[in-house]
């Protein structure tokens, strides 16, 4: 194991133990001011819901990171990349874990939002880990765009709640919120952000694409962490959402849609990881349905479901990675018969499949029992839908496991490192242990559900050998699932048609079309605005002048513009200013470059005299020095460019239309600048000018020239930065003229 892998595993292990210890010690809370002016607090607190998700993220993290330590070096070798890049993946995984922990502990919505976006950034790094692969990069971008654009909705919701109730603390909000437009709007926005993060239909399309990530990333992000963050947010904000029953109905509808879309596509998909991705869409649909049902039963079911699903699904992703590593294949039709060759893996993933399919003696049995219970409480129609969903789940998972481990194939099986197998076995053991002794798992889920339900939400798990509704529903689901599995080959045509229809007119098309449209619009604007430098200057100056002129016209001018007294002793100043202005006008006339440079110097030297007359001895000296250097610099540049090129340039004439346009733009800018400067100079002098304090303090700074003291002492840091700019410019000039930029 490399050092970075050990570090990642250690981070996860420490997080797991620390969370556990903190909970056992009675909780943990931090609350320090963050931005007091906005009343923001860095408040983190461990409660039952946070505990559940934190333990999942850290615990599954330990196993997945251990798996990754064996998987990633092989992956890099397949891709022909140096092994040291391993550290990038482990680092991003650890960053993800920490963001996820922050997210589940945050009690301030703004803080939660920060961690929310951090998880998105980490997931972008992870999905796009194979950066040479264009498809991976675009998939990473898609996941980032879908989850961060919807994250803006979450931010809007936070602002709405803050405007209405004056706080962003979740507990305070839950205490004061009442049904009304603010809660309805904010609740809908929060739900939209959360459902996009959990890859619920119609924003589910990014998840199958995200399978471009290396397998450990999928095993972590797309089972226990990233997608779980969405349902976590809904669970966290559930007491707010529950104020508006329509929101819960919306959750119910989206959850059912996701179960159906994800389940049918999982039944159709042949690629192992894509099948699992669609299955994740469907399984989080279950959780969303239960959150939509709400109440104690819904909350209890949702929490136990998240727990059982995260354990089992990460095991299945890791199974897919190990199978592909052993055979070099990843499509179901080309796999089979691996049970004899990889018995441990088959057993471990078999337990995971059984738990997702809710077979008895696994933790998953209870998750479906609670699901059926919540559904039956809501009504017969939902009970029927629940049985259909469970049957679909059983069918596609049976197909997954049977397709890989049963039957036969010509696949050659290479041995794989033990670390690709034992995390799967560990998780399989865990879910079977949960099926035999569900107590600790139920307690964990119960603590979480109490937060969501806003009161006690008992997680009652036990086997009952009687004819109660849940048992009848489970039996019906197994039977229907088995039939569906047998009948699947005949349904392939219909499933393909569904998948094609989804690709042709589905939400992914909307995504690509909007991206292509935005790209085209951006290109169009770019073409118009940046055709050349002059068009760009005009594009900045003309609207800016127009806006300023508008401001000047609309602002009341009474007393704003004062001509100011002109005394006889000001005559030299007026004259020199006139010379400078005339010299400036002269620069626009000559065609020859040398005369142009001379006219520019004339402007500069006149201004130096103006500065001297204004009492700026230092400025005048600097201006003379700089203008001299300027004159030399221009002459030097002229000598570096052949004279015939300069003559050719001097003889060029622009068209009459361009000349007229330039003249109008220049005159407008000049007039507007005059107005702005005049308005500024006419402002009354403030009571306590900074100059007086500088004059008074200069002596204490042991300087006589106040300007020098300001530059070297009072504003010394500015001067330091200025010197840096000059130095950088000097290095750049030297590099350009003598370095490897020489053509």
């Amino acid at each position, binding site marked *: 194991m490399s050092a970075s892998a050990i570090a990642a595993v250690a981070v996860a292990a420490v997080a797991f133990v620390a969370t556990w210890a903190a909970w056992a010690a009675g909780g943990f809370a931090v609350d320090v001011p963050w931005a007091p002016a906005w009343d923001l607090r860095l408040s983190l607190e461990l409660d039952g819901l946070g505990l559940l998700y934190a333990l999942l993220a850290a615990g599954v993290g330990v196993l997945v990171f251990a798996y990754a330590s064996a998987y990633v070096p092989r992956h890099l070798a397949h891709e022909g990349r140096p092994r040291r890049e391993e550290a990038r993946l482990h680092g991003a995984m650890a960053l993800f874990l920490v963001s996820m922990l922050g997210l589940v502990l945050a009690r301030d919505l703004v803080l939660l939002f920060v961690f929310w976006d951090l998880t998105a950034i980490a997931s972008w790094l992870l999905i796009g880990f194979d950066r040479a692969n264009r*498809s991976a990069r675009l998939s990473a971008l898609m996941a980032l765009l879908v989850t961060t654009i919807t994250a803006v909705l979450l931010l809007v919701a936070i602002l709405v709640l803050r405007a209405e109730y004056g706080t962003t603390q979740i507990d305070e909000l839950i205490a004061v919120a009442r049904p009304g437009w603010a809660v309805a709007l904010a609740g809908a926005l929060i739900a939209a952000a959360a459902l996009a993060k959990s890859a619920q239909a119609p924003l589910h399309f990014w998840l199958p694409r995200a*399978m471009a990530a*290396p*397998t450990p990333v999928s095993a972590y992000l797309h089972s226990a962490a990233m997608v779980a963050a969405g349902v976590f947010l809904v669970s966290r904000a559930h007491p707010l959402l529950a104020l508006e029953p329509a929101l819960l109905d919306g959750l119910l509808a989206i959850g059912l849609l996701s179960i159906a879309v994800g389940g049918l596509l999982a039944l159709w998909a042949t690629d192992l990881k894509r099948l699992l991705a669609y299955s994740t869409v469907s399984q989080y649909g279950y959780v969303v349905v239960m959150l939509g049902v709400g109440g104690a039963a819904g909350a209890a079911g949702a929490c136990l479901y998240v727990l059982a699903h995260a354990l089992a699904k990460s095991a299945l992703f890791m199974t897919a990675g190990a199978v592909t590593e052993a055979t070099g294949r*990843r499509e179901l039709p080309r796999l089979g018969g691996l049970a004899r060759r990889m018995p441990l893996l088959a057993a471990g993933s078999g337990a995971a499949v059984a738990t997702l399919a809710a077979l008895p003696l696994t933790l998953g049995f209870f998750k479906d029992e609670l699901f059926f219970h919540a559904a039956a409480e809501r009504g017969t129609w939902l009970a029927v839908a629940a049985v259909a969903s469970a049957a679909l789940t059983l069918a596609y998972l049976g197909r997954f496991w049977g397709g890989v481990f049963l039957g036969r194939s010509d696949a050659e099986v290479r041995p794989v490192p033990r670390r690709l197998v034992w995390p799967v076995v560990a998780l399989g053991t865990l879910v079977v242990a949960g099926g035999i002794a569900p107590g600790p798992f139920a307690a964990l889920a119960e603590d979480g559900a109490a937060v969501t339900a806003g009161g006690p939400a008992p997680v009652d798990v036990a086997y009952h050998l009687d004819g109660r509704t849940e048992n009848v529903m489970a039996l019906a689901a197994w039977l229907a699932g088995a039939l569906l599995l047998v009948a699947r080959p005949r349904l392939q045509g219909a499933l393909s048609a569904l998948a094609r229809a989804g690709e042709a007119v589905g939400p*992914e098309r909307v995504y690509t079309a909007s*991206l*292509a449209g935005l790209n085209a619009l951006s290109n169009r604007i770019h073409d118009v605005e940046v055709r*050349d430098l*002059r068009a760009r*200057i005009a594009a900045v100056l003309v609207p800016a002048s127009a806006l300023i002129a508008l401001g000047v016209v609309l602002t009341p001018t009474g007393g704003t*513009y004062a001509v*100011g007294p*002109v005394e006889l002793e000001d005559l030299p100043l007026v004259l020199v*200013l006139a010379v400078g*202005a005339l010299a*400036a*006008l002269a620069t*626009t006339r000559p065609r020859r470059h040398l005369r*142009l*440079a001379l006219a*520019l110097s004339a402007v500069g030297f006149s*201004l130096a005299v103006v500065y001297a007359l204004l009492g*700026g*001895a230092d*400025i005048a000296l*600097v201006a003379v020095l700089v203008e001299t250097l*300027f004159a030399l610099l221009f002459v030097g*540049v002229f000598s570096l460019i052949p004279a015939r*090129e*300069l003559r050719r*340039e001097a003889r*060029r004439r622009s068209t009459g239309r361009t000349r007229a*346009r330039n003249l109008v733009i*220049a005159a407008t*800018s*000049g*007039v507007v*600048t*005059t*107005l702005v*400067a005049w308005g500024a*100079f006419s402002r009354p002098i403030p009571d306590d*000018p*900074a100059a007086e304090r*500088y*004059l008074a303090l200069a002596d204490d700074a042991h300087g006589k*020239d*106040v*300007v020098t003291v*300001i*530059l070297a002492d009072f504003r010394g840091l*500015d001067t330091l930065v*200025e010197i840096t700019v*000059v130095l950088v*410019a*000097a290095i750049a*000039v030297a590099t*350009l*003229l003598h370095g490897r930029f020489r053509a």
Partner: protein
Amino acid sequence: MNLVFAAAIGVIFGAGVHLLLQADLLRVVTGLALVANAASLTLMSSGLTRGREPILPLTGDAEPASDPVVQALTLTAIVIGFATTALLLALIVVLYRRRHSVDLDDLSREEAEAAARDEAEEPALDAWRELGLEVDEPEVAR
């Protein structure tokens, strides 16, 4: 005097803008230098007091010292303006060495031709494929 200063600033700025809009890059740089000059003059003439140099000791009752704050700002502006203008001139020299022209019209024409050549060699893919989201078989990493 307010109006006199403002008018001078406006003229210098207007002349600078006129040069900025030319095709000749050397004129563009000259224009930028003029705009920088206009900015320096604006800073200097916005001083709250005018009088003798702000150098101690000041004989309090005679003439007031001129505002040292704007002088410090102007000094910074002049030096930075000089550094950036020098950099621009160096860029023009390098541009000439590579493209044998200091004319924006020539350069943009050349750029358009190069873009057309690239397009002819490798036509832009249609939007779907360009985004890498082709319908049939998306790539899935192992």
